[in-house]
């Protein structure tokens, strides 16, 4: 761990050169690779100067978690072990982060829910843990297939949540995620999310910098809260009558505490916009018909737009990169001219459509669908059909 001195230019114990993050992200030469999402996670963690990773097997993240174990054996990760359950894993991650370590972990589906209690605790404790969530179904009967329902359930934990569409984004989001999450004015946990199997187990072409380069280590002395001390809040508050007090001061402190963690999420916008080039990405954003979503749903939407373009129907894409902070103003601006807004989703409830409807004017323009769930694929033709169906009698589209 750093004691406040810059380590840029030095060499770590594995022989990697510690470089300025800006150089690693934007200037360092990159080489082309063809690898699965799990392998992408491993390569990002290899360059992330991670102090500790705690793992627990659950499909589809088990492979990535095991690969991070390989990094420990190779000496790229400081410590690594398997927890007793996902709840234990996330608690152990908290302990390590309280102590000033850079922490990485992974989870999926039922594991996310089993660990759930820890996420708001991480937030309230200002622990900048990076969790790579590889979403899968959470329903009974048991389902290991991709489904984003769990993602809708973690939206209001207070964590930063970035949803990567591709292997390239997964790689970049993990490294850039640490940089944003560890800013002293942010200092929150971050979930870097991918769609299980669609991204985790599918090979993709991406460009990555040399494994001889690494991020500067986490500097816990820039934290907005002291490192763990049993006498200092939040630890003291967790075991103190403070939380039990029925008085105005106690309530006001808790309220102010929650407001501050939400404010920290807001502050991440400035850093994120600079590093990711914006919280959304637009393609033909001036079209009358828009497809707005995140993750794999965007990839399928893009293919649907291509099919429709071949028929002379112009459809634009708005990709949401960060679910938290939610790009409210960006979406209002991007959709202001749209007549129809389609929100394809890989879940049964359509939480993304709800999110969008909640922030834009004239939200009758939002068509919550198409939906698939339980691991179903979403062929672009399904999106095309949905769009054509809605177009009939609703609008006249220039052909």
């Amino acid at each position, binding site marked *: 761990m750093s*004691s*406040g001195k810059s380590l840029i230019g030095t060499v770590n114990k594995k022989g990697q050169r510690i470089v300025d993050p800006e150089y690693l992200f934007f200037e360092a030469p990159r080489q082309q690779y063809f690898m699965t999402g799990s392998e992408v996670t491993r390569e990002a963690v290899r360059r992330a100067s991670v102090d500790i990773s705690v793992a627990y097997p659950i499909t589809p993240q088990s492979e990535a978690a095991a690969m991070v174990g390989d990094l420990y054996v190779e000496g790229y990760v400081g410590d690594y072990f398997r927890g007793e359950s996902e709840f234990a894993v996330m608690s152990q991650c908290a302990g390590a982060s309280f102590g000033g370590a850079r922490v990485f972990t992974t989870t999926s589906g039922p594991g996310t829910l089993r660990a759930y209690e820890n996420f708001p605790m991480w937030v309230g404790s*200002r622990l900048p843990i990076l969790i790579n969530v590889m979403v899968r179904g959470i329903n009974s009967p048991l389902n290991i297939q991709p489904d984003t329902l769990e993602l809708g359930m973690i939206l209001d934990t207070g964590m930063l949540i970035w949803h990567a569409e591709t292997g390239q984004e997964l790689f970049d989001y993990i490294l850039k995620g640490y940089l944003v999450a560890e*800013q*002293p*004015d942010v*200092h929150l946990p971050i979930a870097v999310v991918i769609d299980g199997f669609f991204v985790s187990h599918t090979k993709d072409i991406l460009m990555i910098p040399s494994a001889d380069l690494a991020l500067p280590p986490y500097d816990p002395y*820039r*934290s*907005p*809260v*002291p490192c763990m001390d049993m*006498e*200092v*809040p939040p630890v*003291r*508050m967790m075991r*103190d*009558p*403070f939380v039990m007090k029925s008085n*105005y*001061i106690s*309530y*006001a*402190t808790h*309220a*102010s*505490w*929650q*407001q*501050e963690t*939400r*404010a*920290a999420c*807001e*502050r991440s916008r*400035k850093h994120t916009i600079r590093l990711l080039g914006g919280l959304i990405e637009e393609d033909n954003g001036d079209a009358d018909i828009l497809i707005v979503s995140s993750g794999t749903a965007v990839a399928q939407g893009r293919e649907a737009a291509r099919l429709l373009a071949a028929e002379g129907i112009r459809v634009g894409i708005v990709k949401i990169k960060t679910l938290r902070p939610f790009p409210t103003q960006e979406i209002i601006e991007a959709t202001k001219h749209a007549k129809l807004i389609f929100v394809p989703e890989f879940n049964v409830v359509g939480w993304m459509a709800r999110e969008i409807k909640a922030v834009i004017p004239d939200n009758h323009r939002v068509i919550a669908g198409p939906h698939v769930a339980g691991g179903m694929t979403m062929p672009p033709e399904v999106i095309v059909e949905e769009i054509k169906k809605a177009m009939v009698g609703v609008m006249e589209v220039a052909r």
Partner: protein
Amino acid sequence: MAGPEAFLPPAAACMGVVLPDPGQAHINGEIVHENVAIEEAARKLLRAKVPTLFPGPLVLWAWNETAVKKATAIYALYTALRAANKGALLIPMPDYRPKYPKINPEVEINPNHPNLTIWHNKIDVCMFVGVHCHQANLSLKIIRGGTDCYTIAMCAQAGHEDAMLSFRDATPEKINRLTEAVKRTSGEVSSNGRVSH
């Protein structure tokens, strides 16, 4: 307004206030050059009836050389304020523990109920320095919501939207520059707000 915001102001970051970049500061949410903020902070401190410095654990404990230098600089600032106004106070925030049954507001301030210290001492302008950012924001919001005190943050990191005036990247040198501004301005500004000639 319903909910906690009926009693607490919303976090300024959620109201669109953004933090300054290096070399800058903010005054009431407006980004200004750091030098402008130094002059304004000096004026605010000098015009106050009870200007008060709240040093926190990061400068109260000699955990590195910079902390010692900052503590020395803060004491010099206090001395300069005291020379201009005998009512100036230096009240530490030594730790963040909830104190029961209650703190002694004459000798300390606590992030969980900072308003008690403000009210008791009739503090009208205060400056946080060396307080961890989370606890500083916690306090600054409660002070803004429950008192009329003008808040200044001399932050070593990115600054505080919840203070009415905030510096960032605080160093001993920056604190010394504020002290110099106080000394330079003290002949011109009195605590009744008048400029003397």
